């Protein structure tokens, strides 16, 4: 044997493309798919850039006047800004001369001089911002970019976690059947018997009241994934039940492959495309769910911004005709979600061309 070993298969000459390579080739010919992939990648890039502070790091700076007009609507009258400016002006107007009765009057001049040395240079607030400003004069465009960070992260992270939970539980239930399946089915049924929104709100109430799940966006990710695993669980379970009776699994048992190996090494790659498509669908769903939660006030804390909090703020602004915050958050979300959904469709076609 060793003599033959001198000429081992040195390099892999031309390994055939696997499932993922073929899927990628098919996806590349799908124009809609590639366009939506580009949009999704663009949003992800934006999110990463904002996370590392490359863009929109100064989103919380109050740069413009209150409800600054978008620059393409520069001429429009801004009543709120004028009111505020008038009020500020009113504060700054010289007070009525009370020096006769004021015992501190002689010191005012000295204080004024000292204050001048410290030199509070009041920033000149701009009248317009690229896409308008919010109540405090923050740049709406930057808010939307910063908001994408929270929204997309929450969407992706909770989708990943939910898919993981659903896949593992589904694999166990489908593979083992019998008692394990019964137990998990009971668990699943209890979960799904509670109205979904109520379940989320109940979790959210507990999470925010006790603070046990940590702060910031971690509780939201947990809430969404702990309530959202049920759909993929059922799908993966059904796939496992189907695949368990396939001959290749029987063949794996015949060569002595262990249960764990059969479950995850043999069957999982055959159902992973189902999980991937679900993951993509979940991401869309959870981005929307985060928006709803933040809108209802169960979402991210006030010192952070997400598309949901922007939409919540926009509620009051719309009454006074300031539509740009709603437009910015709504449009970003709509574009991303649409692109993601189209990408999901294209992925499904690419991974399972027979389905088309």
């Amino acid at each position, binding site marked *: *044997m060793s003599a*033959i*070993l001198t000429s*081992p*298969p040195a390099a*892999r*000459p*031309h*390994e*055939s493309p*696997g*499932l993922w390579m073929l899927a990628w080739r098919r996806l590349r*010919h799908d124009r809609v798919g590639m366009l939506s992939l580009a949009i999704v990648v663009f949003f992800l890039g934006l999110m990463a850039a904002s996370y590392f502070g490359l863009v929109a790091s100064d989103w919380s700076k109050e740069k413009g006047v209150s409800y600054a007009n978008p620059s393409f609507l520069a001429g429009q009258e801004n009543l709120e800004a004028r009111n505020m400016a008038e009020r500020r002006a009113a504060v700054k107007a010289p007070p009525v001369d009370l020096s006769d009765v004021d015992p501190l009057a002689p010191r005012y001049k000295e204080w004024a001089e000292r204050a001048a040395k410290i030199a509070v240079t009041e920033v000149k607030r701009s009248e317009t911002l690229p896409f308008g400003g919010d109540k405090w004069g923050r740049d709406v465009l930057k808010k939307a970019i910063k908001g994408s960070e929270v929204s997309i992260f929450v969407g992706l992270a909770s989708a990943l976690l939910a898919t993981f939970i659903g896949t593992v539980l589904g694999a166990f239930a489908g593979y083992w059947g019998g008692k394990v399946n019964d137990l998990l089915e009971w668990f699943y049924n209890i979960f799904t018997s509670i109205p979904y929104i109520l379940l989320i709100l109940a979790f959210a109430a507990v999470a925010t009241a006790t603070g046990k799940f940590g702060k910031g966006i971690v509780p939201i990710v947990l809430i969404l994934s702990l309530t959202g695993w049920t759909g993929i669980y059922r799908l993966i379970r059904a796939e496992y039940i189907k695949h368990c009776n*396939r*001959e*290749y699994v*029987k*063949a*794996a*048992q*015949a*060569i*002595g*492959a262990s249960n764990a*190996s059969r479950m995850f090494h*043999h069957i999982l*790659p*055959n159902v992973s495309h189902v999980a991937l498509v679900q993951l993509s669908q979940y991401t869309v769903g959870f981005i929307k769910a985060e928006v709803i939660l933040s809108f209802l006030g169960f979402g991210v804390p006030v010192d952070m911004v997400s598309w949901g909090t922007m939409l919540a703020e926009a509620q009051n602004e719309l009454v006074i005709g300031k539509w740009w915050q709603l437009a910015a958050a709504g449009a970003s979300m709509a574009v991303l979600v649409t692109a993601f959904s189209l990408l999901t469709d294209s992925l499904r076609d690419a991974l399972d061309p027979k389905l088309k």
Partner: protein
Amino acid sequence: MSANLLEIQDLDIRFRIDRKSEPFRAVKGISFDVPAHSTVALVGESGSGKSVSAMSILGLLPDNAVVGAQSHILYGGRDLLHAPLAEMQAIRGKDISVIFQEPMTSLNPVYTVGEQIAEVLRMHLAMSPRQAQARAVELLAEVGIPNPQLRVNSFPHEMSGGQQQRVMIAMAIACEPKLLIADEPTTALDVTIQKQILDLIAKLQEKHHMSVLFITHDLGVVGEIADRVVVMQDGEIREQGSAKEIFESPRHPYTKALLACRPRLDRRPRRLPVIDDFLKGDGRAHLEERKRGTSPADPIILEVRNLDKTFFLKEGLFGKRAVPAVRDVSFKLPRGKTLGLVGESGSGKTTVGLTVMRLHEATAGQVLFEGRDLLTLSEREMMAYRRRIQIIFQNPYASLNPRFTVGQILVEPMRIHGIGKDERERIEMAFQLLRRVGLADASFYKYPHEFSGGQRQRIAIARCLTMKPDVLICDESVSALDVSVQAQVLNLLQDLQDEFGLSYIFISHDLAVVKYISDEVMVMNDGAIIEMADSDEIYRNPRQDYTRKLLASIPKGLQRAKELE
């Protein structure tokens, strides 16, 4: 014979695969006629273009098919390829009807068979519901469904495969069509049922003065019923002529090969001839006979004693119903010999194989492998024996993991059982085995879907060989393959037995194949072994009625070609 009912002229069909590559040419300009009141058999192996040709008659081709402009299919003075859709719909089912291979998937499971037959009648013949129902009962009686008054209200799943195929035939002949296209109508059925269906089609053809276009891969089947035979290969017609000419004096080597490569009951060459023998040589190299049979002195490697396997079906909330699948099966497998296991579907032959390997837990009995009872071993102890008994499944499309490369498939069992001292050696052994089963080295890096059925079965065989087993259970391992490929795989199995002294348990419903490869044959029916003898003996002097019935249903077509060579 009168004028031609259907004339196919220069039929050329291409399939567009994608935008870049050249369309795949499935049918390369074929011409043949279907005379009135006769049966024409279109014979060819998978990929020969026979089904595509037949479907083009009814305009049932997929969207990506392109039919050449010079092609014509003339039926009653009209060109079916250029007929408007409304006209085609009037012809489909009424003048020309089809029977498909899988009756279970061709019948709609949510309607009763009566409703489905009645639908055809009402659509094409404008019968009233009452008339249609009455005619449906008549039709069911005509195709030999017992108690048709009652069965007309059955759902498809309440019927056996053979009965479903009869219902399909009843639907097809409901409007008294002039042409019946039968696309592999018996391939999914047991031999005894196949015989009945063939007889039925022949009888109906006679009675209704129809023509039948019978598509099959098995020349043996058409011998009994066809008037004319058209042999196709790679989208071209190799030979056509009367059945007598084709069977008694075939001219094209491909036809000769098809006739010769199927194992026959009366002969047992050392190796089966394969198509290459005929295309390159004269096909006479394998006339030497092989001796078969067992003797009491043979050392026994595997002994099964009183094996029982009962499945329990859930009934209601708490009820269970026992379904005995294997009853009191005992046999001995001598080392280096082949034990054939024959029976119809549902006879329990596959269950025996799976239970012996402990892929099913037995209800009772013993499986002695070199004297050790495998059924009492713990899972850990069993690991050492797993390697030594291996199984090759029926469907090579299902038994290989589609996400693994052939390399992964071959190396994994060696890794599990610690064969070979390191990964390099295992890979080298995998390459050797690939070569041994006749596959190219490049196969190592490919995925199963890139191979044909026969090649996949070779991969499955190579996977078993990685573990150097002593006993190989072949569960219908060649049943899904084309006859010529079947011959190659049988030859390979035979060579491996000669080389490594393997013992086979060969499970099949095909008596000719079992006869060819086995030293000893067991016949199973209803979970029990009813007859067991040396293979020559059982074919010469069957003692049980059931065995005689099985033997009688083997298609006689090939025996007409007896004097060949």
